[in-house]
């Protein structure tokens, strides 16, 4: 990475998840100057919080390693973390962008030795684990974090912890006077790779996510599988840390529902099918999973995976949108109430744990883009039309699985290149 001064031949990518990294890398590896802006202290986004991918059941960190190696080695690419775009003016081929960079309080000297983390005491919610546990006020967001550089939580600034962190660092990497700064860029094209956020399950009142400890979300379940996650890689239920062996998965938790998200989030069916294999991986024959669904949307070759899971006698399927959940007194078991609509059977099923397959919501509220962007009623950015220089990549454009998100991001890299080539001399 070099300090490229952006020109209207550069491409700005907003969002450092897998889609943003892909769009940025594909363009940079095609010789283009690219600036990648990420809101959090490190790249990776949602993918870095997953245990395994469907349908292959491989580990996302593997691709993350390759991508961060590509970024390290690429001199056309400049990464700005802890930064957000607050204004974009101009048009295709010539955008002026203003970016606000939050202070990290740790400079390039950081060797990631970890002494500052050892020195501080105060703890904060760990966003990487969806606040299921705490982290120190000086921290490396996660093992694979890139840039491999520590962060000071702004919460410790002005406290003793801040001074302890500074004192502990022998490389003068802690800079407590770091201020938020504004960066001005001139770029030719912009790629929105702002991604998605899990739908807030507390809104789904009949399921009592806000009232019952043993009702969790699919994204939280992923974190449980990480050896370095909140439960040390064990599937435990929050109420009593008992092993959760009989697990219910509720599909369309927030999706396909006019009360919440009207759209289908696409990934949730496959995610739950995948997560049933976690239950089996951990508890073998004692592991039982039940999927409550409306339609199982395992399209194209994902069907093979669906067939595999269906063949597992420990996994059962009930066609039903669960009506409500109550808590069994004494045991704390969540009890699911509803009707299996295939032949009309009522059920009141107790499980150890309920996993809500929460829907995908665009990270950026459609009203909150710093420049006019055409979104559909679900908040996803529509396909480009006319001579725009702004494109969506990945889940900013639709509810997509990783594979499709990367495919879409690769396409958006070309769309951006078309714009900068059109406005630069490099055109053939």
């Amino acid at each position: 990475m070099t300090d490229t001064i952006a020109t209207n031949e550069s491409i700005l990518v907003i969002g450092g998840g897998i889609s943003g990294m892909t769009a940025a890398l594909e363009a940079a590896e095609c010789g283009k100057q690219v600036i990648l802006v990420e809101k959090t202290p490190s790249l990776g986004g949602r993918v870095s919080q997953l245990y395994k991918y469907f349908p292959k059941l491989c580990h996302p960190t593997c691709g993350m390693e390759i991508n961060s190696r590509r970024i390290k080695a690429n001199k056309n690419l400049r990464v700005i973390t802890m930064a957000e775009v607050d204004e974009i003016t101009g048009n295709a081929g010539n955008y002026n962008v203003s970016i606000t960079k939050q202070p990290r309080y740790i400079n390039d000297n950081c060797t990631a030795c970890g002494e500052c983390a050892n020195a501080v005491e105060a703890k904060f919610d760990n966003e990487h684990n969806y606040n299921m546990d705490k982290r120190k006020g000086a921290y490396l967001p996660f093992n694979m974090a890139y840039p491999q550089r520590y962060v000071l939580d702004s919460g410790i600034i002005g406290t003793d912890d801040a001074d302890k962190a500074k004192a502990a660092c022998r490389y003068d990497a802690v800079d407590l006077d770091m201020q938020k700064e504004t960066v001005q860029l001139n770029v030719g094209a912009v790629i929105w790779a702002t991604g998605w956020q899990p739908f807030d399950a507390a809104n789904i009142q009949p399921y009592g996510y806000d009232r019952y400890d043993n009702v969790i979300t699919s994204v939280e379940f992923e974190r449980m599988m990480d050896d370095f996650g909140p439960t040390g890689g064990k599937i435990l239920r929050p109420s009593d840390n008992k092993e959760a062996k009989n697990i219910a998965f509720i599909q369309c938790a927030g999706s396909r529902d006019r009360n919440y998200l009207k759209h289908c989030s696409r990934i949730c069916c496959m995610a739950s099918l995948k997560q049933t294999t976690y239950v089996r991986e951990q508890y073998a024959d004692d592991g039982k999973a039940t999927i409550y669904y409306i339609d199982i949307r395992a399209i194209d070759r994902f069907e093979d995976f669906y067939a595999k899971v269906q063949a597992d006698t420990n996994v059962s399927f009930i066609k039903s949108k669960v009506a409500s959940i109550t808590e069994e007194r004494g045991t704390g078991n969540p009890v699911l109430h509803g009707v299996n609509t295939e032949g009309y059977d009522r059920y009141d099923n107790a499980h150890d744990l309920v996993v809500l397959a929460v829907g995908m919501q665009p990270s950026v509220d459609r009203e909150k883009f710093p420049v006019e962007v055409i979104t559909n009623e679900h908040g996803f950015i529509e396909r480009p039309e006319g001579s725009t220089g702004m494109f969506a990549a990945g889940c900013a454009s639709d509810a997509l699985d990783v594979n499709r998100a990367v495919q879409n991001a690769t396409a958006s890299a070309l769309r951006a290149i078309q714009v900068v080539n059109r406005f630069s001399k490099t055109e053939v």
Partner: protein
Amino acid sequence: MGNLNTTMIEKYRNSFLHEVEANVEEGEWVKMCMQCGVCSGSCPLGPHWDHPPQELFMMIRAGKREEVLTSSSMWMCTSCYNCIVRCPRELPITHIMHGLAHYAKRLGLVPENQQTEKFAQLFWDNLTNTGRVNELKLGLKLYFMNGFGEGIKMSLKMQDVGLNMLKTGRMSPFELLGGHSIKDKTGFHAMLQKAKELEDAKIAKHGA
């Protein structure tokens, strides 16, 4: 009414769904159901439904006219609105149930001795009589709605309730003589008459 039923059968031979859409309150929503079953699971009297709402919707699409209209299911609706607020597709299920019940009644297809149907009719007659409900008369009618013998039994069974209500001044024997009423009964009845005419005309048009 019976012949209206046959006319309707004639008209909508191959689509009960169209019949419901045209003649049942909020019937045009039936087609929007995606069979998730959240309504069926949310009904407090659910276990007492032969066919829960989502199944009724499927039966309507499948043209099971007789089974649907003669079912006691929609008469089980307590109007708790659980189904409406939970329905992911915005179907006004409570109203559709009321609508189906009313339509069945209109076509004379309500099952024998359907208690809620009887009570609902009593209630309607009672309120439309003076414009306001006369609880005492309604109560007595209710006890006797299944015949005199049953009525005596019921009255005895409900004696304590009645006495309690009298004691606490929440019921008065004087209600038997006239009782509460609105002033403009004439206008009130004319209004209901007009409303009924307009509605019958619509049905007749569809039935024709």
